[in-house]
């Protein structure tokens, strides 16, 4: 799938101070009944949004493109519907102390940047956005930097994934450069 290239982004951030947010919470299975990739944003965190004081119901975070969350974000099911829902809702960056493996891979393919920062830094960002919903965070993928107020932190990202996000490259196109090797592997195995 061709995705939008990402260089840098400055936005308000939604503080979701919970760990182990699973993909069933991000998008419950009953909303996976579509054969398209689009239109899932309205169902994002569907059951949590029924709680009136859930952070996504707070209008002050409207238009935010960054989500800050607790550790092990995106655990559970491999459904790509979870990043689709986040992306459709407007989220381009998720900052957390850790992510589940499959979810993180899926994010790259959807064009969402997943940033891992120390637990202490994430708590700091969570409390800033909680106290002041207007406070902005800048995510710079070219320098691998997060900036907020006068502070800056660097983060690591798989270099290959970073390139793909920066260029918005299609994964299949990249692999098809090696089509001859795939064919060679297949004929070797067939013998």
């Amino acid at each position, binding site marked *: *799938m061709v995705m939008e290239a990402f260089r840098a982004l400055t936005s308000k951030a939604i503080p979701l101070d*919970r*760990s*182990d947010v*699973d993909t*069933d*919470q991000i998008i*419950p*299975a*009953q909303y*996976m*009944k*579509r*054969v*398209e*990739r689009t239109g899932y944003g309205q169902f994002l965190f569907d*059951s949590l949004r029924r709680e009136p004081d859930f952070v996504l119901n707070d209008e002050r975070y409207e238009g935010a493109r960054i989500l800050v969350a*607790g*550790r*092990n974000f995106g*655990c*559970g*099911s*491999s*459904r*790509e*519907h979870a*990043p689709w829902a986040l992306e459709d809702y407007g989220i381009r960056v998720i900052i957390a102390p*850790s992510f*589940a*493996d*499959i979810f993180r*891979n*899926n994010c790259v*393919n*959807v064009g969402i940047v997943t940033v891992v920062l120390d637990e202490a830094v994430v708590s700091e960002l969570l409390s800033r956005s909680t106290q002041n919903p207007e406070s902005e965070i800048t995510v710079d993928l070219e320098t691998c930097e997060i900036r907020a107020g006068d502070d800056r932190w660097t983060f690591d990202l*798989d*270099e*290959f994934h970073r390139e793909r996000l920066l260029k918005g490259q299609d*994964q*299949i196109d*990249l*692999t*098809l450069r*090696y*089509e001859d*090797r*795939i064919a060679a*592997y*297949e004929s070797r*195995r067939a013998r």
Partner: protein
Amino acid sequence: MTDTGSRTIVEKIWDEHVVHSAPGEPDLLYVDLHLAHEVTSPQAFEALRVAGRSVRRPDLTVAVPDHNVPTHNRHLPAKDPISQKQIETLRRNAQEHGILHFDIVDERQGIVHVIGPEQGLTQPGMVIVCGDSHTSTHGAFGALAFGIGTSEVEHVLATQTLQQRRPKTMAVEVDGDLSRGVTPKDVILQIIAEAGVDGGTGHAVEYRGTTFANMSMEGRMTVCNMTIEFGARAGLVPPDDVTFEYLEGRPYAPTGSGWDEAVARWRSVVTDPDATFDSTFRLDATTIAPRVTWGTTPAQSVSVDSAVPNPDSMPDDSVAAAARRALEYMALEPDVPITEIPVDVVFIGSCTNSRIEDLRAAAAVARGRHVASGVRALVVPGSGLIKAQAEKEGLADVFIEAGFEWRDAGCSMCLAMNDDVLEPGQRCASTSNRNFQGRQGPGGRTHLVSPAMAAAAAVNGHFADVREI
């Protein structure tokens, strides 16, 4: 890899499947078997069509509808038109691309992770993927099997490969015999409770030790199935005679001289004696008791003879906060004995525990007893063939006489995409793998248990210690 050149199973399978590797790039890994179901594949097929690409190796993909199929009145279309559309879309995509497809009326239809092994498609040493996180199940055969997202499904369809970083390796060593009434489900729940929901993140696991060596293939599949619940994408058991015996004679297993060659090759899919793992986790199987989850992650479980934990006595603040939130959702008070918790619904099924051995274990408890009044209990076999086998063995009659509903194969109430759904507030003893909030229906409350423990809860109307039955 270790300096000596000794390798673990995962490393051997990985090396064997690398099509291309270059510094700074993920390895390009060849996929031997790709399994597709109706919910996570339609967008992948559609994207292929839009890009004008074809399926590179239709002979290496197998498709089956399972997630949202109805488990009764099979002759009718699914009540929900969109489920029906997903089922039909899978059928059409399979036909169009020449992909083997076990349709809804085919006796071989069933949960994708049940039918792969059952048909002998799943074999040692393979790389197996599916757009489903419980693909780890196939690791029971010594295959490197893991879940992928829909974009990756598209990538596999188009190229028969995946771009992957080599995972770290983790040994999970469990030794000793299981006590009476303790099952593979309890072993894996204990592992997850100790490792934590993200204890295996970034790793591929090898299950080692006498406990797994002495386990049936069904038991190994239950264990490998839930590997993802502690964060590891793949979990393997070394293939051995138990594995080969299970596979021999299955429809898609090698035959004749091909069988002997395959077995000889599979015997080398073992970890070298001096290979090392990036991390090791050990457990004594003799200490494990039947377990019940009390919270909203699979790591939140205790033994049946204990009580709901008290967040006030948890040392870590964030753990305590998560526990409080879980107890609130589950409508449970701290310190209440597990055996005093009543249940409304009992679900025996899912890719974790819907195989013939699971049904035998549940039927052994149900036999001569009756589902408690006010409790609704369902048995959903993992495949049409398991259903037929259970009927032949008289297990179906045992369940029906005991007041259980006897259904057709599918995922059913494991994720409640069909019409088998918990009502808000209902409490369910379930043999599935996830007790996440709303997993079995919005507002539903799930407790994960083994098949025998589920049957015990059904006949008692509350959790009960199967060792006392």
